């Protein structure tokens, strides 16, 4: 991507608030990649809003020198949609955890995809609920109960005998929802993650980046080493615009592809639709339609 003259350096996006994450938390790497990407995209802190729900990862907005909205658990997408609809000129970045986005927030995701607002959604996927101290999340990979494998029941507190459900495939479902930009990242590949974030932020429409961001405190299985061994870069000749192929790729079980998996350009956005509506009413500074006129309709 073409390099612009950087106005704000990555460090300019650091806030005074020091992250309260555990030493070795994957979220540190993600945060640094985000600083970098924001700088590379030439964002203005005062024209940018970082939105989140609740979770370790959702504490991120406070650590960024930009406007922030740290809402309640699972509601980051609706809040971000409202911000973007109200102020289309702002850059809106949503961050949060796998539990926040795929569990309690799951119901908002497909509808945000349908509306396709120009929002970037960065999920720090640690395959667990970190803040509540290590229960399974929808992306957890604890063996099924029937397999009877030994599980560290101190760590997997709500599944001491194994999971009773299969984990979800966040990439596959995003493709089915036709999220218009879908990528996978890894906090221990910070430069690559920054590059992906730059593409996502520049993508016009709703973009999802699911970044593996290990939780050393509560997840001893999906560690940085685990992901180093189980991820591979998507080949450069891969065509992310082929939806069926993207779906096929998302189902692969031999490892997790890192990079841009699916991309759809010029999908309609709710904001375009609404702008066009307003234009249809020749909107200008002083609205053409007045309350007097409206009241007349009911005489």
């Amino acid at each position, binding site marked *: 991507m073409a390099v612009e003259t950087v106005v704000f350096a990555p460090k300019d996006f650091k806030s005074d608030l020091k992250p309260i994450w555990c030493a070795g938390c994957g979220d540190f790497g993600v945060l640094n990649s985000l600083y970098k990407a924001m700088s590379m995209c030439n964002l203005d802190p005062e024209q940018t809003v970082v939105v989140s729900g609740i979770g370790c990862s959702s504490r991120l907005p406070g650590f960024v020198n930009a406007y922030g909205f740290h*809402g*309640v658990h699972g*509601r980051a997408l609706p*809040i971000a949609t409202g911000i973007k609809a*109200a*102020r289309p000129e702002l850059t809106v970045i949503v961050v949060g955890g796998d539990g926040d986005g795929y569990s309690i927030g799951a119901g908002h995701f497909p*509808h945000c995809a349908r509306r396709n607002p120009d929002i970037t959604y960065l999920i720090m996927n640690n395959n667990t609920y970190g803040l509540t101290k290590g229960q399974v999340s929808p992306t957890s990979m604890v063996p099924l109960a029937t397999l009877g494998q030994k599980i560290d029941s101190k760590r997997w507190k709500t599944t001491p005998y194994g999971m009773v459900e299969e984990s979800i495939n966040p990439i596959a479902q995003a493709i089915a929802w036709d999220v218009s930009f879908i990528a996978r990242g890894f906090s221990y590949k910070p430069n690559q993650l920054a590059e992906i974030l730059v593409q996502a932020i520049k993508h016009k429409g709703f973009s999802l980046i699911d970044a593996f961001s290990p939780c050393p405190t509560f997840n001893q299985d999906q560690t940085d080493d685990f992901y180093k061994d189980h991820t591979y870069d998507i080949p450069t000749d891969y065509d992310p615009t082929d939806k069926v192929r993207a779906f096929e790729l998302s189902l692969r079980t031999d490892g997790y592809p890192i990079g841009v998996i699916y991309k759809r350009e010029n999908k309609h956005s709710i904001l375009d639709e609404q702008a066009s509506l307003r234009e249809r009413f020749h909107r200008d500074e002083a609205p053409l339609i007045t*309350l007097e006129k*409206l009241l007349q309709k009911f005489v």
Partner: protein
Amino acid sequence: MSAPTAVHTTDVVLRLVGESGEGTVSLGDLTVQMLSAMGLDIYTYQTFPAEIKGGTVMYQIRAKSDPILSHGDNADVVVALNHDGFDLFGEGLREDGILLYDSDVFTPRSEPGRTEYALPISTLARAEKEAVRHEVEGEQLKRLPAPKNIVGLGALLRLLSAPMEPAEDYIRTLFERKGEAIVRMNISALHSGADHVAEQIGSKRLPKVSPVVRNDVRITVNGNMMLAMGAIASGMRFYAGYPITPASEIMEFLAKELPGFGGDMIQAEDEIAALGMCLGASFAGKKSMTASSGPGISLMVEQINLAAQAELPVVIVDVQRGGASTGMPTKTSQGDLNLALYGVHNESPRIVLTTTSVEDCFWTTIDAFNLAEVYQCPVMLLSDQALATRKMNIPAPDLSKVEVRNRQVPSVEQREAGYLRYEDTETGISTMVAPGMKGGIYTSTGIEHDESGDPGYTPVLAMKMKRKRFRKFETLRINEGHKFVKEWGDEGEVEVGVIAFGSTEGAIREATDRARAEGFKVAHLHVRLINPLPVDQINEFAARCKKLLIPELNFTGQFANWLRVNTDLKFETFHKDEGIPFIPNELYQEITRVAGS
């Protein structure tokens, strides 16, 4: 008639009953237009069946030569288009009342004292269609309905001694594009209905209805429409909602009109998303609103709390409906007061306002936005099904009286001096930036936080910030409480003082008027601001009342209990939750009972 009135004035209550989906509602709407054209004031009340379609609707119209306060007591005239309807709502007809019924459908057991008019609507309508059969082509003929409503309208207008011309003009404009023959058929149907009634009149009694020369322009609107227009007047430019009876109409109205004002409406996937979007829009600097009813408001509880804690202005409309859980979606109630006041874990203050009349829906909505903006908090705005669907022909609101207030934005200096989003001020009110402003960067959060917005949990900080948030409401109560109470009735010491809130205002005023006409000394204080409660004004009023009566439409007396929490007053209560609004007479009875007790 339904209230003692002087001669030559008109006050008539019509009740139309028939199959829903059938023409009953449109016949009602037509009648409203014609009576309004006579210069009469109109006030309607409708109840809908539980069924999606089918079941009986009741459409009550009160027409009066001076301002109307309620849908009245018993009906002077009942127009029964089906038998079920007559069985369900017939007993609402006064003993000496007039019954007009579709004699093709059923024959009521006749009652002494009652005047009856039989009208074979289908037969007459079919005849009219036959008459033009040869003039219209097959396709159109197939789709051509027999003009039953028009026959009914003609009959009803004749019964009311109303002029036919306005109806004829209306029919012409309505059916013009369908061709001359159709117009002729309908006009002839109008007269056929009228004539059929005329023949039967003879010495029979007729309701007293006389035209009035009106000197002002009227708009025919209901509570939902006025509320939506009030929001537009307040500068609301972002709406998100999810459909629910009886609130959907607000969203539907705004979907159509808001883009014209440069605003957006989003139909969300649920009420949680709807409120979330509103909070985002408000944070970003736009005035936002959502509207729902009980079930949807219940789902919003968590984020109402976030709005209060993060100090975000937002207006949340609850068009109350009947019953707990899914309950009775098409009925009315004042049952959500507790939820509006207490629907929050731990404690965070929210303003609770209530609308009192169709016209007031406009003005109180403006108040709601002004208070939300000035005090940076969620405002719960309570309406209800009866008020929301109530149609009246009222004077258009005087827009020159609209005063719009906005959230206080920090000056450039304030921001450069090191901005504190949640500054702990004397009034409790801090300044609020919007993204894009220089030097205003902060993170809005529902976690306990210090003045800058950074998280903090120490006991001292927790109490300091909580006091700050609650202090705003003392400021409001003391500085503005007096604006939200209104008094009627006798001055000075009275036998009975009625204190109430919300959409019962009109029925209570009519009841107190009647009691005073009968010589009782009665006063009425109506409260629009429920939280914070204007306690000083209430105590002042109570001080001149020998007895107090608190009437409300819910099961446990929620407003009465709120008064117990906020005052030391002793009072009698009158509360029920049957799904229907008060009628003046039952309130009148209560007032006299209390006076006598």
